Structures are given as C-alpha cells and as structure tokens.
C-alpha cells in the first residue's frame, strides 16, 4: 500500500505538466483567484480522466446507478455514510481540483513569462529568522548529542548526589543528563517588499475592468511573494478622493463620480513616508485606471508627484491602463510623454483579459 504514494506522486507530476501547458488559460481567468488558500491554490483541471465510450450527461434524467461510469470505482466499496458511491460519482463529472503551492505557481509563471529574478536593492535588508544549531535541549537524535555538555551535566549530578569519589572519578551519564544541540533562531539579513495596488473606481470602471485589475493584482502578488520573503500589500481605491481599504473591499467596491488620480498618489506617498522607509523596503506601486483624469491640471500634479516624490522612493512604478467604454486613455499618453524612457516608470495598456499576460510581463520583466 505504500506504493500508492508513488502513484500519487506520478499523478501530481502529470497534473503539474497540464497546468504548465495550460498556464495561459489560467492566467486569463479569475476562476483561480477565488480558490486561493493560505499557502496553496486549488486549480481545477479538466479532463484528466481517461475518455471512454459513455453516455452524454443529461441524455436521460441522469439517474444512473452509482458507479456506472467507473470500472474500478464499482468494486465493493464501504458502507459509505450518505453513500460513498453517490459522493464519488458526482466528482467524476466535474473538473478535478488539485492543490498547487503558490510558490510553485509563481515559478511556473516566471518560467512562462521568462521573468528575471528580482535583485533587491542592497541596503534594504531586514533581520529575519534563520536557524543555527547553537542551542541546547534535553531530547534529540544521537547525531546531535553534545558530548561535553552531557558530561558536564552528569558530573554536576554526580557531585550533587554525593556519589562523587575523587579516588575513582567515574561519571556515568544517565538519560536526564543527555544534552543535544538544538536549532536557535538566528538573525540573517533578508529583504522585504511592499506592493501598493491603487485602483480607479470611478463610474467608468465597470465590472470587466475590475476583473482585469483583479487578475493582474493576483499574479503580481503571486510573483513578488515568491521573490520576497516578506511582502506587504496595501490597497487604495480612489475616485475624486482616495482611501485605504482592505483586500475584499478593493475587489468588490463600486464607487462612482469623478476621478482625481493625484489623490491616490498623495495617499500612497503619505503611507510610504509613514510606514515603509525606503532604506528598509522595496516599494512597488501599481496603479490601474481607465485613463480618464478629472482635469489636465490634476494630471500635471500627478506628474510632478511622480517625478519629485514617488519615483525616487520606489523600485518601480507601474501604471496599467484598462480600456473601458468611457475612458479616453489620455493618462497613459501623458505619463509616457512626461517620463519617456525612465526605467522606474512602466506603463501598459490592457484591452481585454487575454492581454493581462503581456502587461504582467511588461511590469515584471525588468527585474527591478
């Protein structure tokens, strides 16, 4: 029965191959995002089952006896409460779900898009956990036994118990005397990053535009999380005014009214100043909008904020312009005009879901 683990390993290998081959499709659907857990995401895989001659679903009332479509499954099963058979057969018709570690998904994404690994900026380092065997404890494997400390403990006990005989200085360690090396948290430098997702939620950003933003934000987070051990995410929404929100609100809120992009940039700047000093943090602001700003004056204000305050503080500032029925798309043109080839500012436009991939590549392809 231990061999089942080998079968399972092979199954997982096959599934990963499928996901890799099909990554483009997964990248352009929001289906995955709803399935993210703490560490892993559960990915629906269609068609892993082998094909057979079988009836079309619904070609009758679909009232088949349990196990009809599965040969192995029809072997005598236990008295499953609520019917093992009943539960099993439903699953057979649906896509199979497989848990994939987020890290693995990021690695697939990186390979698919040819993303370079990010070189964190040198001085932005934090102390963090690592482990070195500098501690002691009284239980452990023999290979980690600390002979000198064990002897010391045994000696101390022998003397204290009064059995110490200077004429015959024998010390026999007992179980309680044993000491073993133990890992002790040690400090090691490593890097941290903060991501700002800023979204325009004015009336012109519709459901589809928000879905696209959601997709981009998800994959960007997934990638950056694999590059930094400590990633913080800050969500900002704005129309004419900006505010900090949590993850759920970011993805579901619907505001309306005008658009003043500078409000978001000001808030972003304020948060960076207060919480994320640039010596300690790699900073990645992302801003998504449909490119319609309130006025040319506000756009000037944005350019000024970017040039003098934001860009010097960040690794890279990304602007993603999502095409909507109402947006003019002017803002991207203005930014491109103002900053031209500045590598700290990347802009991309996304007309539909299929283009999300290209935008992510543009944003993350520089490895900054």
């Amino acid at each position, binding site marked *: *029965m231990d*061999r*089942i*683990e*080998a*079968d*399972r*390993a*092979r*199954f*997982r*290998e*096959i599934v990963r191959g499928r996901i890799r081959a099909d990554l483009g499709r997964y990248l352009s659907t929001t289906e995955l995002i709803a399935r993210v857990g703490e560490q892993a995401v559960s990915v629906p895989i269609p068609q*892993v089952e*082998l*094909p*057979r*001659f*079988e*009836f*079309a*679903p619904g*070609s*009758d*009332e*679909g*009232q*088949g*006896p*349990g*196990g*009809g*479509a599965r*040969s*192995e*499954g*029809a*072997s*005598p*099963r*236990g*008295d*499953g*409460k*609520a*019917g*093992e*058979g*009943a*539960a*099993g057969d439903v*699953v057979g018709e649906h896509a*199979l779900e*497989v848990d994939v570690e987020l890290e693995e998904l990021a690695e697939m994404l990186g390979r698919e898009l040819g993303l370079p690994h990010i070189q964190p900026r040198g001085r932005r380092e934090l102390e963090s956990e690592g482990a070195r065997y500098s501690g002691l404890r009284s239980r452990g494997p023999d290979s980690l036994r600390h002979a000198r400390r064990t002897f010391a403990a045994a000696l101390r006990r022998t003397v204290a118990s009064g059995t110490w005989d200077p004429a015959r200085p024998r010390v026999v360690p007992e179980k309680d005397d044993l000491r073993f090396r133990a890992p002790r948290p040690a400090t090691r430098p490593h890097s941290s990053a903060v991501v700002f997702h800023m979204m325009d939620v004015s009336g012109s950003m519709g459901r589809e535009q928000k879905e696209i933003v959601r997709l981009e934000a998800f994959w960007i987070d997934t990638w950056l999380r694999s590059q930094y051990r400590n990633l913080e995410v800050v969500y900002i929404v704005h129309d004419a005014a900006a505010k900090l929100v949590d993850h759920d609100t970011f993805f579901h809120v619907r505001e309306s009214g005008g658009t003043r992009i500078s409000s978001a940039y000001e808030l972003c700047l304020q948060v960076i100043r207060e919480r994320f000093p640039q010596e300690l943090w790699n900073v990645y602001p992302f801003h998504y909008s449909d490119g319609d700003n309130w006025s040319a004056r506000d756009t000037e204000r944005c350019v000024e904020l970017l040039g003098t305050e934001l860009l010097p503080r960040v690794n890279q500032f990304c602007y993603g312009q999502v095409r909507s029925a109402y947006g003019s798309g002017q803002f991207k043109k203005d930014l491109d005009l103002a900053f031209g080839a500045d590598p700290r500012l990347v802009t991309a436009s996304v007309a539909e879901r299929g283009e999300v991939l290209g935008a992510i590549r543009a944003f993350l392809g520089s490895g900054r």
Partner: protein
Amino acid sequence: MGSRSRGSTTLPPHLADWARRIESVARAHGLDFFPLEFHLVDASDVHALAALGGFPVRYPSWRFGMEYERLEKAHGWGQARIYELVINTDPVVAWLVRSNAESEQKLVMAHVCGHADFFRHNTWFAGTDRGMLATMARHAERMREHVERHGLERVEQFLDGVLCLDNLLDPHRDQRRLWARASSESLALPTHDVLAWLVEHAPLEDWERDVAGIVLAEARYFLPQRLTRIVNEGWASFWHSRILTGGVLDASEIVDFADCHSGATLQAPGRINPYKLGLALWRHAERRGEDLFRLRSLHNDASFVDELVDAEFIASGVLPPPARPRRGQGSEALERDPRHVKERLLSELAWGGMPCIELVEADRGRGLRLVHRHSGRDLNFARAGDTLARVEALWRAPVVLDTFEKGSPCRLRCHGGQLERDDGGAATCIDLAS
C-alpha cells in the same frame, strides 16, 4: 477452520469473538461463503486500498494515485466515510477500519457475510478468478518488468490507451460460451468482447499484448460487480439487518445501528442509492414469498429489477422521481406511470450502465467498424471521439463508429489520429473505403 483463525489474528480478541459469532449466525440463516479473513486497517490505509479496488498490490498507475487523492479529500471534507472493503476471493478478505465504533464493526462484519455469500453463489461471479490477490500481484510484477525494459512513459501511455477501452466487454460472455459450448478461446465476429478481440488480433508487440491482457483480465474480474451493485448491496444490507437485530446487538447498540444503517441507505434526491433500492427490493421479494436464495443465485441488477419491480413496489415510493422533469414531453402522470418508471430504470441498468458497443467488421487493410447499439441515450461525442482514437492507436488502421444522435444516424471515423464526423446516414453503410 484454519484460515479463519489465521485471519482473526489481526482482530483483537473481543472482535474476533464477535466475528465468529456473527459468522455462525449468518450460516445458521443459510448464508454460505468461503472462509472470511478480517483485517483491521487505518483510515488512510483504507483509502489507499479503496483506490486500488481493494487489492493491496497492483501495477503502478497514476489513476490509483488520483483516486487516492480524491478519497482523502472527500474524507477530509466529511463527504464520504468508508467503513469496510471486501473483495471477491477465496478466502474472502475484508478490511475493517480501525476507527469504526464497535457496533459499526458488528454491522460491517454481518454485511461482509452477505457479500461473501453473494460472491460465492451468484451466477455472474461464477467465472471470476478467486485467486485475484495473487493474480494482481503477478500483474504488478510483470508490469514493473515492462516499465523497466521499455520505460515508464511508453508503458504508461500504452496502458492508459488500453484502459480507455476497459469497458468494451461482453457481460454475457460466460453464458454465451456455455450455450455455444465453445471450446476454443478464439472470438468470432460480430462480438461485444471488443477489448478481448483486440488483445487477440491487434498488431501488438509482445509486451503490449501482455499489458493489454492484464487490463482485460482485471476488467473482466470487476465487471460482475458493476452488474450487481443494487442486488449485491441490497442482499448484504438485508442480511446485516436480519443478523444484527436477531440477537447479535444488545439493546444499547440498536440506536447506533439504526443511525449507521440509515446513513448508508440515505438517498439523495433524484439519485439511486444501491443500498436503499436493493434492500427495498429484497424486502419486497420476501413479502411476495419468493425463494430469496434462488433469486440471489440468478440475478444481476437489470434482471432483478425486471423481476421484482411491480406496481406495488413503485407505489411504495422508493424509486426516486426524476431529478428534473423532462421538458416538452410527458407529464407528471407519465413520469409516475409504473411501466415508464420501470423502463427508465431498466434502460439505465442495461449493459452495466455502459453503452452497448459491438465490433461488427474488421479488416487489416480496410479497417475496423464498431456499432453502438443505441437504446435511447446518445453517446458523449467528445469522449467517444477521443476513445475511438485510442482504438485506432491499438488497431493501427482506420476505425469507424456508427451511432445515432438525436435520432439520426451518425458516423465517427478516425484515421491517422484525425477525427471525422459524417451525419449523412451512414449507419447502414458498410463500405469503409469510401
């Protein structure tokens, strides 16, 4: 009995005592079975065993791994719980889950007695290999040798291709051979035993023929279980109730028993639970004064339903109403019409719930023709096309399948991995070269 004491060694003494007691009660009721071997296993082991069809040693395949993962997940979500597995061998091996409550263990042991009696005496099981534990282990050994010699990818790809065809069997093979008094193993066309025919005639390398033969042997072994789910589970449930409530359980355990029993016979709306339907049919048979032991020797699900479902049974309401009413045709009254209800059930049970596919013509040069004997339900065309491609890969020449879609004839042709579909009324057309 020697083997019984051998099997009992893995049960703690008090359970072994119960096993002996339950067995003797079962035998006193007239059940007759090969010696029973009970083993206690952990929940995770039972998932592995279930994924492997109840057999601890089988050839390597990712499909078992997939099933294992599915079971573990379903268990984790509380969707399914396996109490026991029993396999059709001599001696009968039954795996009991260690975490079952004691009253559950008793129920499960009595249930196993019912299955064991059914395996031994039901005519559909007459031809099964009772030494399957050892046979499967030999299959595993041979498959590993093939993998070592020809590489995992190659063997796996071939194996998966053959597994797609493992339902192309003739459920009536044993009977047919009996009637024909055929001494030769060789098959004549036309035949429903498509996989067997391919194993014999397809241009395969030796190792490929061996792999295909292994798939065939194992599929044949499992087929009777697919044909007798309702009647077999019903029989076992009928007897576990009778044995347990006839003095084996003490009063304090009856409620636990009822809870466990009702859980197992719970029926989701619009869906048949073989435990519930089977049990109801057996009780109905008893009410009608039938010879129960004769019935359990003769019937598979389809013939059992045909024999026992009458107006009175349908009125009892055990058969679930259709999950969703058919639109456009028929009324509530038709759905409730006993003849209609019975026919619908029979059409689902016929041929083990699989499409009836017959191989009618095979010619090396011109190809191979399969016909789907349509009985009211269309094929899943996407899957049928994929499957047909696997047939072609095995036969290494063009393959066609004639069927119907929405009442009109339809032909699928696979040539060089390319699928074509022809709706031009080709069902009776025999000319493959066209």
